[in-house]
């Protein structure tokens, strides 16, 4: 009840029920649309500038096939998590537990393999764990109406604990060779995780765009009250988004374990904030400021290129982290600037 009502209340606050009170007065539109193209293209231009800058600084290294392949390989796991985070953010929520879910799933798959299970069973087990975490998040958020922040912060904490329990605080290794090909194998000269990330992104794109559940996700995220009054089961739709996020995060955890040939209780943790950052960067690309998979991939690309490029020109990881934050602020602040006239 709360979430729906809150949305409604917020909407009411933004738009008092007055005669003909309709979005921006006509006079303000030109201002917004004048900045619009720059704004929505800004992030993409920024991405291109970033690539160009690193390319000019170290043409011998940065723009080589080998390095670009490296970038793609490095961002593949982030791309999977960011893609499913996009789904949750389309619905108007977010999931802080995706990193911890990736960690625990990576640990689960490793433990199952060490226990002698086949690859298929082990991977399925990890995905089920992810789905369960997602279901808990979804239940807390959609049905018990906890705020997504509180609910997923709490599950993140508990799930992280489960990851430590699963690994017993150690690094799990000695995984079978067949499983390792998932993260380390190549196809057509490219690492398999790249294909997996592409497949996940493609599926998310298709589902968001062409399925009834995708349309419902958009509607709920656009305005939950409108969706409810249009006959959408808002709770179930929200719930499913979190389940998708859980499964996606679990898949990323499995790929990560395979790539590292080992699992620890915290391997996947750092992906959570990066994934949210990528979606936020991507939202600046859409004119309406909504989460979208294309934008998310560009966001992932920016983060990946930044990290890779700064490495190549020899900037320390501490400075990298500092710069990453600055860039996120700059991109999002810039897009808000252009939005002022509309909101």
């Amino acid at each position, binding site marked *: 009840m709360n979430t729906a009502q809150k949305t409604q209340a917020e*909407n009411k606050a933004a738009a008092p029920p007055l005669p*003909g009170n309709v979005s921006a007065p006509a006079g303000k539109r030109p201002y917004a649309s004048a900045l619009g193209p720059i704004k929505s293209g800004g992030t993409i231009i920024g991405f291109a500038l970033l690539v160009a800058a690193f390319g000019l600084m170290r043409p011998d290294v940065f723009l080589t096939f080998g390095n670009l392949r490296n970038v793609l390989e490095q961002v593949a796991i982030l791309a999977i998590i960011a893609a499913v985070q996009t789904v949750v953010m389309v619905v108007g929520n977010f999931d802080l537990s995706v990193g911890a879910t990736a960690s625990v799933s990576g640990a689960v798959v490793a433990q199952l393999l060490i226990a002698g299970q086949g690859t298929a069973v082990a991977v399925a087990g990890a995905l089920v764990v992810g789905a369960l975490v997602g279901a808990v998040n979804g239940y807390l958020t959609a049905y018990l109406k906890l705020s997504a922040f509180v609910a997923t912060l709490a599950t993140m904490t508990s799930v992280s604990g489960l990851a430590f329990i699963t690994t017993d605080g150690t690094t799990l290794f000695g995984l079978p060779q067949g499983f390792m090909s998932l993260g380390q194998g190549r196809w057509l000269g490219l690492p398999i995780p790249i294909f997996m990330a592409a497949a996940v992104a493609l599926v998310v794109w298709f589902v968001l765009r*062409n399925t009834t559940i995708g349309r419902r996700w958009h509607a709920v995220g656009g305005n939950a009250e409108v969706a409810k009054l249009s006959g*959408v089961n808002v709770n179930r739709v929200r719930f499913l988004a979190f389940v998708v996020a859980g499964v996606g995060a679990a898949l990323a955890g499995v790929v990560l374990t395979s790539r590292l040939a080992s699992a620890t209780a915290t391997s996947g943790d750092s992906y959570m904030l990066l994934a949210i950052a990528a979606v936020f960067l991507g939202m600046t690309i859409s004119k309406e400021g909504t989460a979208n998979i294309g934008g998310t991939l560009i966001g992932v690309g920016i983060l990946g290129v930044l990290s890779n490029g700064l490495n190549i020109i020899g900037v320390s990881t501490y400075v990298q982290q500092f710069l990453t934050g600055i860039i996120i602020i700059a991109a999002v602040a810039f897009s808000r600037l252009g939005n002022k006239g509309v909101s």
Partner: protein
Amino acid sequence: MTTTIQHVLEAEGITKHFDGVFALDGVDLRIRPGEIHALLGENGAGKSTLIKILTGVYSPDAGSIRVEAQPMAFKGVGAAHKAGVVALYQELSIVPNVSVAENIVLGDELPSRGGLVDWKELRRVARKQLERLNQGHIPVHRMAGRLTPVQQTMVAVARAIAVEAKVLILDEPTAALTDHEIQDLFRVLRSLRAEGVAILYVSHRLEEVFELCDRATIMRNGTVITTTEVADTTIDEVISTMVGRRQDELFPARGVPGPGTAVEVAGLSGRRVKDASFSVRPGEVLGIGGLAGSGRSELLRIIAGAQRSSSGRIVVDGQECSHRTVAAALDRGIALVPEERRSQGVVLSQSIGENIAVGNLKAISKWGLVAGSRIRSLASNSIAELQIKSRGHQQIVGQLSGGNQQKVVLAKYLARNPKVLLLDEPTRGIDVGTKSEIYGLIRRLATQGTAVIVVSSELPELIGLADRIILMHEGRISGEVPAEGADEEQLLTYCYGRAAS
């Protein structure tokens, strides 16, 4: 220029329009110091917009406001506050989780000593203000949220006089109060009047206005019709001034309802609605009138499955329905076009096609897959049929005019071919031309056999559009009349819950 201040507040030629529709058109309002001035008008007459302009929430498109002959700058609520214009809204007037004393000094500089709050001084100041209102018994250290409603109102008034308000605006201050508490409030307001504070009093309760107020300004359709001494007029005269003339030419000819019953409601109760019973025939347009808060919207929401009922039943086509969700009601052929277009009707950031599609996903999908071509054809049909002025189905709804947005909402629900169509304020805030189109559309649906229920705050709309009108007062159905030849004043007396003469 003048040395004596005759008016503490002078608003001249205030004009405001939203999206090309005038909410206020050249409104003049003059308030004298030490008077209680009523602002009256039907819902949608422009009272709220005017108050929001006086208090700096909106800036007007044209016109000027002078407070004590000084022009007021339109720079937000803070500027209006500084000029001495303070409004008390029904719900937002206090901060419930801090003490009474802090509520009264809220927004002022907290008295402090060496950077720490000087609680003693804070409470002394607060107590002084309450005593000025004869409300010294209210404990200043208590959490404001734990006071009774009237005490909360008193605290809000105390805050207003603490900032030396010259003009105090009260919007329906008695809605949550008992008769006894109302008298307490009136005593306080009269003593403020004696101190020279001007009070602008907005209320639907005309009896109160006649008991309390000195002068009244009556608005209709965004303009001021008259300002009069309350002693020189009567309640009936005020009502007929508020109502104005009819707009017969907007409405299509009435039809003939079919035989039988399309929907029947018996003993329906909810949070506000109490024991509502009525039925609608196929092809009939039933109008429901009543003041804001009379339970009209809740009644529709219950029938449409958007809200639970506590008792009663709903029968559609002879079958009792026990739907508890909008989806289930839609499946039974009941569709509700909701009251708030922007927050309940359309997703402003999405396209026309997406908005219409979300209410019709079953019809345009197979195995969970939505065919883009079917969204396109559904939306294009709607655009053509309802004459939605747009650049095509991909245009974002937020860019459309209010009337065209409303057509998109209608299209979403009409695509399901409902047997029972419920409309809550279907023409609020849209221009006259589009209004007329929507009336025509409603009548056309009725002619095809749809049972239509329309809730509206505008009585002329109900009289012109409906076949039959029921009126609600404080959750109950207080009257029923045939629409043809209905008398607005008679309807209004039902709305105010006064016995018909």
